[in-house]
């Protein structure tokens, strides 16, 4: 019966929208990570695939992005497909007042899969209810960023060999950061040992912790002490203070200055500890750390490519 369920889910990734990490079962995530491994192999062999030949990916970025949009575009091209889309809304019909529903109804006729980033929370879910083509959420306000989480899981497993029982410390703005909200859920699903470090006013919302404690039955350690989190970490995952989501920018800058990882702090970390970051980073990690063996965020950014190739392939093929 269980095997049958897995098979049904496997088939159901085709034409499935990827909206929230909360929609995915562990088996489904495993399928994506496995496919990403295949894609990384293809990339390392310098091959280009033709599996998406004749298919079109639309990237609708209502909010600016560098990495996510570029990696989706490159992923589609590496699979032999082509890309259309826009970034920002200034020169589009949205600037004339068109709503998201109409934009999706038009764009879905031109393409086979849609990647969307939108400032409103729930926009991707809404788009998936309108579109007959699969929607991939590339960030909806402060809510979710599931493909980032999938590439984070891939990176951790790739560099550490496992996720289960690893000491993972999430450090930074845990209140507004959508990356952290998606990630903490997925790491709990994979039974990592979680430590959450944030400035006092930017702690992970209680309802998220309550949900993952209930669903996955794991313990989570919370602290405001950066060093405590760094010392025990196998993986230190840092994110920036989400300045744009703060009501008072001065307050955000003040926190940003005081919540910063220095070389001296990293000297107290485990020797094989790795530092990840969804990027862009600002001042939260001292630049000198970029050159240390611990810093793996640029490698992590690269893994976005095989993971997004995997996701496009699985929902489109």
């Amino acid at each position, binding site marked *: 019966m269980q095997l049958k369920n897995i098979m049904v889910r496997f088939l159901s990734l085709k034409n499935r929208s990827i909206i929230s990490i*909360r929609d995915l079962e562990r088996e489904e995530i495993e399928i994506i990570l496995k496919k990403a491994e295949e894609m990384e192999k293809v990339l390392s062999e310098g091959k280009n695939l033709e599996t998406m030949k004749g298919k079109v990916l639309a990237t609708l970025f209502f909010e600016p992005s560098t990495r996510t949009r570029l990696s989706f575009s490159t992923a589609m091209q590496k699979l032999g497909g082509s890309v259309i889309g826009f970034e920002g809304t200034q020169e589009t019909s949205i600037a004339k007042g068109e709503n*998201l529903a109409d934009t999706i109804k038009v764009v879905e006729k031109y393409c086979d899969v849609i990647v969307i980033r*939108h400032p409103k*929370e*729930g*926009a991707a*879910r809404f788009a998936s209810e309108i579109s007959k083509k699969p929607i991939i959420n590339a960030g*909806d306000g402060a809510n979710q960023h599931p493909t980032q989480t999938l590439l984070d899981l891939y990176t951790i497993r790739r560099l550490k060999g496992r996720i289960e029982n690893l000491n993972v410390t999430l450090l930074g703005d845990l209140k507004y950061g959508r990356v952290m909200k998606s990630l903490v859920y997925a790491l709990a699903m994979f039974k990592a040992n979680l430590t959450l470090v944030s400035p006092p006013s930017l702690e992970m919302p209680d*309802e998220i912790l309550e949900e993952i404690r209930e669903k996955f039955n794991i313990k989570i350690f919370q602290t405001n002490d950066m060093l405590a989190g760094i010392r025990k970490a196998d993986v230190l995952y840092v994110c920036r203070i989400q300045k744009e989501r703060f009501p008072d920018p001065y307050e955000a800058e003040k926190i940003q200055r005081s919540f910063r990882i220095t070389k001296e702090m990293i000297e107290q970390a485990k020797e094989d500890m790795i530092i990840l970051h969804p990027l862009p980073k600002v001042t939260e990690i001292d630049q000198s750390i970029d050159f240390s063996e611990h810093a793996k965020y640029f490698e992590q950014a690269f893994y976005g490519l095989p993971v997004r190739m995997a996701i496009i392939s699985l929902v489109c093929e």
Partner: protein
Amino acid sequence: MNEKELLVRKIENGTVIDHIPSGKGLKVVEILKVGKDQDGSVIVLINAPSKKLGRKDVVKIENRELTKEETNKIALIAPNATINIIKDWEVVEKRKVSLPEILEGIIKCPNSNCITNSNEPITTKFVVEKKIPLKLRCWYCERVFSENEITI
């Protein structure tokens, strides 16, 4: 026939919703979408004396039998409401309301940045995660709200 009897007069066929908290009767009419397209009258009695509640509202809908799915929609604002189905002047079914698993188009999402609070053609949708104490998760922005945060 005295005036009091006139106010609460019986209906021949339809649905009577009793024990609605005082002041919520019109909201019940709004949620159930009963009104001008109705084949028959809709009677809303506001602030009637009640032994149980002190004061209560009553809604009577002529010529329409509301289903369980329909009447459960009012469970949030009238958790102790009694539903009476009337046929030929008699009560043929009496039931309580219970909170459904999903509430559509009833609550406004308190998150101002939720897509439901925009100019999109969209109906709000909440998943009931917990009944006591009440926890509702917005289907769209995925945030969880407790009873004191929501407005109906």
